[in-house]
């Protein structure tokens, strides 16, 4: 508990720095955002009125303080494009992105950890080299290209999977958490569950592929490192089966590095969702961010970027705390 409090207090200056950077972005941008938003037809009076409405006529320090206090209370105002409260828009779309990130993580873990462990156990074999080559290809694949190719093949040619959206049109899910997989399962709506899985499959593979490649390489090198430790030799000398040595002694210790990388990459998954959601027209906050940027809805853009950064920060904090559970020797 003390660790958590210390980390949260230590996070305050960093979060302040993040909020300041995001706030300043709008002010260092060339040109007046109001004129850009209102377009060429706007009169000087229109521009002046909007500037007043947005509070842009006030001193910078006052604006920043206002931005901060609003952020703390969760009052982010209304989106100019959607004319709805920003917090409501985010609340509607955040579960979709979290669901996608989670599905991608599952894809990455199930593909990468066994492949990495197997490559390490059989290291320098043909299979090891093949596994590492696949990982190198995975790291080098631009995920939006992979997404388009999947759409072309599984959506267009084979007509197997839906190419856009989150659920089939006409299927309703009773909203409890906003996570369709979870909500449809606990309400027993299997049709919705199946449709959500189908819609998630290609975006999750697209987003998870690069992560899978990284995790494969890390798992391999981490297992190789642990395999050389004395306690592994001792475990083998005790007569333990190879399976027990790998699962109980090697993998458990190699997990620390793997979890670190997964945690660090979760942030990359969230930001990668911006591109993946655009490719699949998936209604998450990444897609919302691109829409807000295109519409020059600076307020919404600012809040979304702040939210991405804070989520990334919180995820990293949770990963740090997870270490102590995986390896009780670690103390902060």
């Amino acid at each position: 508990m003390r660790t958590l409090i210390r980390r949260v207090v230590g996070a305050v200056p960093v979060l302040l720095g993040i909020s300041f950077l995001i706030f300043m972005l709008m002010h260092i941008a060339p040109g007046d955002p109001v004129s850009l938003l209102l377009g060429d037809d706007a009169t000087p009076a229109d521009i002046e009125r909007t500037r007043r409405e947005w509070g842009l006529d006030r001193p910078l320090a006052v604006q920043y303080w206002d931005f901060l206090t609003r952020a703390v209370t969760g009052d982010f105002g209304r989106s100019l494009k959607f004319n709805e409260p920003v917090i409501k828009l985010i609340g509607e779309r955040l579960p979709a992105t979290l669901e996608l990130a989670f599905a991608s993580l599952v894809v990455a873990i199930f593909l990468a950890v066994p492949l990495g462990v197997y490559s390490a156990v059989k290291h320098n074999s043909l299979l090891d080299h093949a596994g590492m080559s696949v990982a190198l290809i995975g790291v080098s694949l631009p995920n939006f290209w992979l997404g388009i190719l999947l759409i072309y093949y599984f959506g267009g040619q084979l007509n197997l999977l839906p190419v856009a959206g989150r659920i089939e049109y006409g299927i309703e899910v009773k909203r409890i958490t906003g996570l369709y997989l979870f909500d449809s399962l606990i309400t027993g709506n299997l049709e919705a569950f199946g449709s959500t899985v189908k819609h998630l499959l290609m975006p999750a593979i697209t987003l998870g592929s690069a992560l899978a490649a990284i995790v494969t390489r890390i798992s391999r090198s981490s297992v190789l490192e642990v395999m050389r430790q004395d306690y592994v030799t001792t475990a083998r000398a005790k007569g333990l089966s190879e399976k027990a040595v790998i699962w109980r002694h090697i993998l458990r210790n190699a997990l620390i590095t793997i979890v670190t990388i997964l945690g660090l990459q979760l942030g990359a998954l969230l930001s990668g969702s911006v591109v993946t959601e655009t490719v699949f027209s998936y209604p998450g906050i990444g897609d919302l961010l691109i829409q807000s940027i295109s519409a020059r809805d600076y307020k919404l853009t600012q809040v979304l970027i702040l939210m991405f950064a804070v989520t990334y920060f919180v995820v990293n904090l949770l990963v740090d705390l997870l270490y102590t559970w995986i390896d009780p020797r670690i103390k902060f």
Partner: protein
Amino acid sequence: MLSLRYLKIYVGGAILALLVVCGIAAPLLAPRDPQAQTLEDRLRPPRWAENGLPAYLLGTDNLGRDMLSRIIFGSRISLMVGAATVLFAGLVGCTLGAVAGYFGSTADEIVSKISEIFLAFPFLLIAIAMMAFLGQGVGNLIFALMLSRWVQYCRVVRGEVLSLKERDFVSAAKALGGRDGYVLLRHVVPNTFASVTVIATFGMAIVIITEASLSFLGLGVPAHIPTWGSMLSEGRSYINRAPWLTIFPGLAIFITVFGINLLGDGLRDIFDPKLRRQR
């Protein structure tokens, strides 16, 4: 027999060298003007496919522009943005990292706090945020990517300098009357080059993918300049009618990034003693 690590360096280096030649000699190598539109030849498939024309090896796009020429010219932006970003991010990151590591105390605290803020953002998000507010443009793109990448160099160089400054050769240089600036530049910084080279190589691959992603999202360079990312974005609408519009630019990005990653892998195998032991 040629060892695997040298094979990686040779193959990766050859791919990169080929692309550099392609980028530099683009006006000589491209069969046509990448902007020239021939509307009657729009959406022509590659030469070997049915309805393909010998004049267009990789086909044409929706405005009848030659795909091969656009891909050749597209390599210029990718390589230029990649190289410039690596150079500037490396300069800023290495300078700050070296100063923070060598002088410590206040300098280290300031640099570490700034680094922490940048590390709290996923780098793609920094680039998206910067481009959203700065607007499209090659200069803005390089600036945004530099801002998202400098911290990697800073962290590594700071760590290395912290360890190097305690070594005997640094103490000897100081004992001989070397001033801090001289010792840092002449004796400490050159010893970080191996790590910096490896990060720079992998960094270039990441920057090329990020540039393509930003161009794909419409946040990269202006639309009239051909880039692999924007070509993919334009071709996406025609994926079922003309898949070559997305296949070839994507393949170009993949081969480039694969080559650079291969080179980086080879360099890391040579420079990292830990990995040498694992093999």
